């Protein structure tokens, strides 16, 4: 087992990893930028090293500084958290070269899943259902023919992309030539490659993702699914498990396919396999995230497993302490991502938190690095806290989340708490009837959804 782990991250996830390490009796090293000098992850780690100025590129993305910090503190493993270097295959390789264990998947898995088009192709070969689509498109004529075969509407997508860029929805053959061109230009500018492919477009999809874990002894398990359909501009706002749309039969069927595919590529450590669900409850593989995710607590609440501890155990070469392919899910969990932003205009709101009181009570969990008198810096993401609740069923979880949101006091900055209260009060949400367009109904322009 590791003696000392360096956490190459900040904020709530750095604190989360420190929690797991403390409980395992492993010493921790925090790294921080000058803007994070008073952060909780710095305070609670056993050692801390300042690695650079506020800018991420010079601190949390600075591979040399992070490796150097591991060397001078004698750390034997690095946990990358999520974001930053978590899905950077070169960083994973540098760790290996410097004899530091990277707590995550193998570099080749990260590399495969980082190329969205290649990942889709490989997963299709290995038996996962995928949206009808193409390889990288060469000519306009090729695009028109393919779109005809797939059936409109189709989406033009950047092969090297993500986050909504280099993507265009095409509803008819007349629109295709110019939108193809635009998408290619945007892809070139954003990702350095103009490679695009076509894919069937689902107008009102739901977003369902399966949590997986693999060890170095060939075992892969799935720990249920999460529904992450409530999004704004491809950013998740609220997540829950299980999904109201996934019954035991579907879960077993798709879960089984996921395990077979991941065993075939020798996948290790934590990961999330993302699917789109159409109006007929059919699931199509979208992409895989080769890291621990923001919303992992939702799965922890319904399975009773500590995913970060399992990541550490697996990275240390231990076998997953799980019988069979999967775990039973108990009850229902919901997570609200509470961000520093205005709840109506969604404009970010950095600044100083003057009052902070976290809700407690049965079935309530708060993952946060914020505290009274702390400053939310403008350089990083706006996530202040994750509020997670667990109830015996969805109705109790909703009631509990309502109660917890009401009792969460954050003063001095604007937060998205009012938005979450609106979501939970919405009849469609309560009935489990929504798609990724759901949040449009609360947008400043007031377009329906």
């Amino acid at each position, binding site marked *: 087992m590791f003696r000392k782990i360096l956490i190459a991250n900040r904020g709530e996830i750095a604190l989360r990893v420190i929690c797991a390490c403390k409980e395992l009796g492993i010493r921790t090293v925090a790294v921080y930028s*000058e803007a994070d*000098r*008073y952060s909780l992850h710095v305070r609670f780690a*056993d*050692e*801390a*090293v*300042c*690695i*650079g*100025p506020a800018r991420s590129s010079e*601190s949390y993305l600075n591979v*040399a*500084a992070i*490796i*150097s*910090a591991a*060397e*001078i*503190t*004698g750390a034997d493993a690095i946990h990358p958290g999520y974001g930053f270097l978590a899905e950077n295959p070169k960083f994973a390789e540098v760790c290996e070269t*410097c004899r530091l264990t990277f707590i995550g998947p193998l570099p080749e898995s990260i590399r495969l899943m980082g190329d969205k088009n290649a990942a889709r192709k490989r997963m299709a070969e290995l038996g996962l259902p995928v949206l009808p689509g193409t390889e990288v498109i060469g000519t306009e004529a090729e695009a028109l023919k393919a779109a005809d075969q797939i059936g409109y509407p189709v989406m033009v997508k950047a092969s090297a992309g993500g986050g909504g860029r280099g993507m265009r929805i095409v509803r008819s053959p007349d629109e295709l030539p110019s939108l193809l061109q635009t998408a290619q230009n945007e892809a070139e500018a954003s990702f350095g490659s103009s490679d695009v492919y076509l894919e069937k477009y689902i107008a009102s999809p739901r977003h369902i993702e399966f949590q997986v874990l693999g060890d170095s002894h060939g075992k892969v398990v799935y720990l249920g699914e999460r529904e992450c359909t409530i999004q704004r501009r491809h950013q998740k706002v609220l997540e829950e498990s299980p999904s109201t749309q996934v019954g035991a039969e579907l879960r077993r069927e798709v879960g089984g396919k996921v395990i077979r595919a991941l065993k075939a590529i020798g996948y290790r450590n934590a990961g999330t396999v993302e699917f789109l669900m159409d109006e007929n409850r059919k699931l199509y593989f979208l992409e895989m995230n080769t890291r621990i995710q923001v919303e992992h607590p939702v799965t922890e609440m319904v399975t009773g497993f500590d995913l970060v501890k399992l990541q550490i155990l697996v990275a240390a070469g231990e076998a997953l302490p799980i019988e069979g392919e999967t775990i039973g899910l108990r009850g229902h969990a919901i997570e609200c991502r509470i961000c520093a932003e205005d709840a109506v205009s969604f404009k970010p709101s950095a600044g*100083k938190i003057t009052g902070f009181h976290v809700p407690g009570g049965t079935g309530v969990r708060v993952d946060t690095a914020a505290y009274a*008198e702390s*400053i939310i810096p403008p350089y990083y993401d706006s996530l202040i806290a994750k509020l997670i609740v667990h109830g015996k069923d969805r109705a109790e979880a909703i009631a509990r989340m309502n109660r917890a949101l009401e009792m969460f006091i954050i003063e001095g900055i604007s937060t998205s708490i009012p938005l979450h209260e609106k979501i939970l009060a919405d009849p469609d949400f309560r009935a489990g009837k929504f798609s990724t367009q759901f949040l449009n109904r609360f947008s400043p322009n007031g377009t329906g959804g």
Partner: protein
Amino acid sequence: MAGKKISRSSEVPERSWELEDIQQLIDLLIEREVAEFEMEKDGMRIRILRRESAGTAPSAPAGSAHSSSAPSNNHLHAMPADSEAPAAHAAAHEEAAENVHIMKSPIVGTFFASPAPDAPSFVSLGDMVDVGQVLCIVEAMKLMNEIESEAAGEVVRIHVENGQPVEYGQSLFTIKPSKPK
């Protein structure tokens, strides 16, 4: 203010904390092996925690001089009323008050005072240095980075010891410029 004793709280004169006072306080706490200290005075709150030493890095180059009693990592949490970063605040304070330039480490690594274990140090206390003159080496990932002086003047303070791990922004040398800044 060399040699000034730390007074009891009832005797502390009504003025703001100088860097010298904080340094003397730290020296006293190290001498007395105090583990934790917190105090609020004159609009500034100071909390000092002594942590265990970082220990010798296993990957240190052969022959490097690692002292067995490496200094502890004292994490100074001074929080003035307007919550400015205190290291910068204190450094700026020292710079402004005494017209000196503090050389800070631009990278994370291990500080070496000389080019080789048996060679003489690049600089000693009292030496006059020029802009661009190599003051020390900070080793990171087996690369020896030469740190060049940003000011011309006299080396009046060396903040770190040979073989000590340093972080980004850590004070290395105080140089008293020969011309007014």
